[in-house]
């Protein structure tokens, strides 16, 4: 493998096999709507598993899956681990500090070592955009890579579980108006959500944030841009709040938490701008009192905890599809 490693383009098209099946799951961008729908349908069949007395299916028995977390995460890692165990795979968790050595070296060196242990799948989280694609490009042909979040680029399983959650409540996406609120600039979740919504022909996708938290040319991703909650939430069916990191204050992107919450926080008052039956979502972990009021996060329109449970089914679906074992899911 070392001999064949050459730097070059990392096309997202490599996540599909020649006959259009999922080989890696790296980004939503470029995937056909039919494949996204297939993921949602397979996830639907897996969501039954969690409610049965025996919460395991033998689909990935004998497969070895490595959770490669180059960036700390508890929740995402745990749901991937649990999803793998429910599919009867062997799971190893590797938390790899990027500070120990230069990022690139540790990344590809780690791969070389893990490949030697005959793994079948890498679940990758990394602080640099494009890391999952780099790994997918350089792994041995039998290994699948699932992106569990790379820099600001993509977090495709999170986007799929969000769409899954919405579809359960409001099945016709084409009729929906969705608003994503907050730090779009630094959010891989937002980027993947935008691609997922647009691929599935969602009625309208909006982003609401001050200019300091929006990337340049964001409208070219296929979104309507708003700077105020009053206008942006009008007639919206789904409100997705993003987590705001505290360091955005110190880097002069925002004046204060107080002002942010006043202008962009989701409270019962601001939620009133949206449709009366609008759902409230958050990829977690939420900063209560910074981007969302507790009364809304725990309120009747919040589906935040449902998102967490659905994450398991969606991750089981993606893992089994990548390893070519989705057909046996119980219905």
């Amino acid at each position, binding site marked *: 493998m070392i001999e064949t490693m050459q730097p070059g383009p990392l096309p997202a098209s490599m996540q599909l096999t020649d006959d259009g099946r999922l080989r890696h799951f790296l980004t939503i961008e470029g995937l056909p709507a039919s494949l996204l729908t297939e993921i949602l349908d397979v996830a639907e069949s897996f969501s039954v598993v969690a409610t049965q007395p025996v919460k395991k299916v033998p689909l990935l028995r004998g497969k070895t899956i490595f959770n490669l977390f180059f960036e700390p995460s508890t929740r995402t890692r745990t749901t991937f681990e649990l999803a793998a165990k429910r599919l009867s795979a062997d799971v190893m968790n590797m938390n790899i500090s990027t500070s120990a050595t230069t990022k690139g070296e540790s990344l590809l060196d780690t791969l070389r070592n893990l490949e030697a242990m005959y793994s079948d799948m890498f679940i990758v989280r990394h602080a640099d955009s494009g890391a999952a694609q780099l790994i997918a490009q350089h792994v041995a042909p039998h290994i699948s890579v699932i992106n569990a979040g790379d*820099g600001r680029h993509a977090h495709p399983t999170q986007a799929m579980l969000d769409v899954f959650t919405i579809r359960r409540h409001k099945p016709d996406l084409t009729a929906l108006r969705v608003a994503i609120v907050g730090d779009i600039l630094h959010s891989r979740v937002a980027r993947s959500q935008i691609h997922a919504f647009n691929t599935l022909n969602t009625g309208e996708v909006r982003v609401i944030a001050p200019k300091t938290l929006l990337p340049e040319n964001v409208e*070219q991703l296929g979104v309507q841009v708003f700077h105020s909650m009053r206008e942006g939430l009008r007639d919206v069916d789904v409100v997705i709040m993003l987590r705001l990191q505290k360091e955005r204050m110190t880097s002069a992107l925002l004046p204060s938490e107080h002002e942010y919450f006043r202008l962009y926080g989701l409270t019962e008052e601001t939620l009133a701008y949206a449709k009366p039956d609008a759902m409230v979502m958050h990829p977690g972990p939420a900063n209560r009192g910074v981007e969302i009021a507790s009364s809304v996060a725990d309120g009747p329109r919040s589906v935040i905890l449902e998102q967490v449970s659905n994450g398991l089914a969606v991750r089981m679906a993606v893992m089994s599809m990548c390893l070519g074992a989705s057909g046996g899911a119980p219905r």
Partner: protein
Amino acid sequence: MNISIVNGHIVDPANGIDEITSLYIADDRIVHVGAEAPAGFDSEREIDASGRLVIPGLVDLAARLGEPGFEYKADIGSESLAAVSAGITTLCCPPDTSPAIDAPAEIEFIEQRQDEVGLARIRVIAALTKGLRGDQLTEMAALKEAGCVGVSNVLAPFASSQVARSALAYAASHDLTVFIHPEDHELANNGCIHEGEVATRLGLPPVPEAAETAAIGHFLPIIKLTGARVHFCRLSTGEGMNMVRRARIDGLPVTADVCAHQLFLTEMDAADFNPLCHTRPPLRTQRDKAALRAALTQNGIDAICSDHQPHELDAKLAPFAATEPGISALETLLPLTLRLVEEEVLTLSEAIAKVTRDPARILGAAELGHLGAGAAADVVIVDPEAEWECAPRRFLSRGKNSPFGGWPFRGAVTHTLVGGELVYQR
């Protein structure tokens, strides 16, 4: 040795020559261009250049050569050979080596290495501030006596505008050209890709166009204030280029260059996280590329350079933002320049001028970049019809990091002479 190069298509823009004729060299100098040898000239070696182009050796305003400090990437031996094989006979080495070239001893070291290797000429651009730290001036008079062709802080920021003013004023007192890389450090904010559609899609930290224009806008009044002669390096934006052009119309003593890859690649080439297209300044938009191309003939840009940055394999085997910026570009400078002729951006003579006459003028090197009597006998013979495909793995440079792999090129160097010596023959 007396050498005659006969019946070639000589293109020497500095002297207005663009015809089939012959060239005569005595020892290290050109003595005559014309159909007949000068009286009493006894040719010891004759090179038949029928069907070939004969041009001045290329003068490259920016090439990292690995020494001192980055010998694991490249060395003066490997890079000089790569240069002469590609028709480049003079290489300008920026001071961002390790240690930085901020004292005469470093210039002497590089000259000594140049002499040991004995292939290309190497000219040094010395540091404007000690260690490129941006706070204390270097001993510019001593650096000039040691042979530097200019001074630069490369991409390192100045501690304050006052230091920038002093540095330019001091350089001006010693008649040294200041090479400015226009990048506002804070606005660039450790970005790695042009701020636009691709950066937004890929979620990579971006460098706005304003990082370049703000830096140019910052320096123009200081240039006016100090009277320093300034060369703006590696322009990447159409707007930045327009500012330089307007300043020039206003009479400021400024020149500018662009690196060849900015005339062919855009942000879209990095769209698949291709680390070979990670450059600094970043590849810009289609509109910038078109503006830079147009500026080549509209008094906007004087020279085309390689901005050669050879890297070891591992430097590019990492996630995009973590890779080192730069392209191994010596071996594509002349091919890309000739491609501008094929694409009818420039005439052959205009194209050759951008890599010979004009960079030599920026260096104030009267004996380089042309084929007039008395000039250094740095001559390149090119087979203009040779067609080949770029294969970076076969580069003579130790850096194989080029995004031009697979590009078809027309025109290949067959002979390179430096100071009247045949240093390369294919």
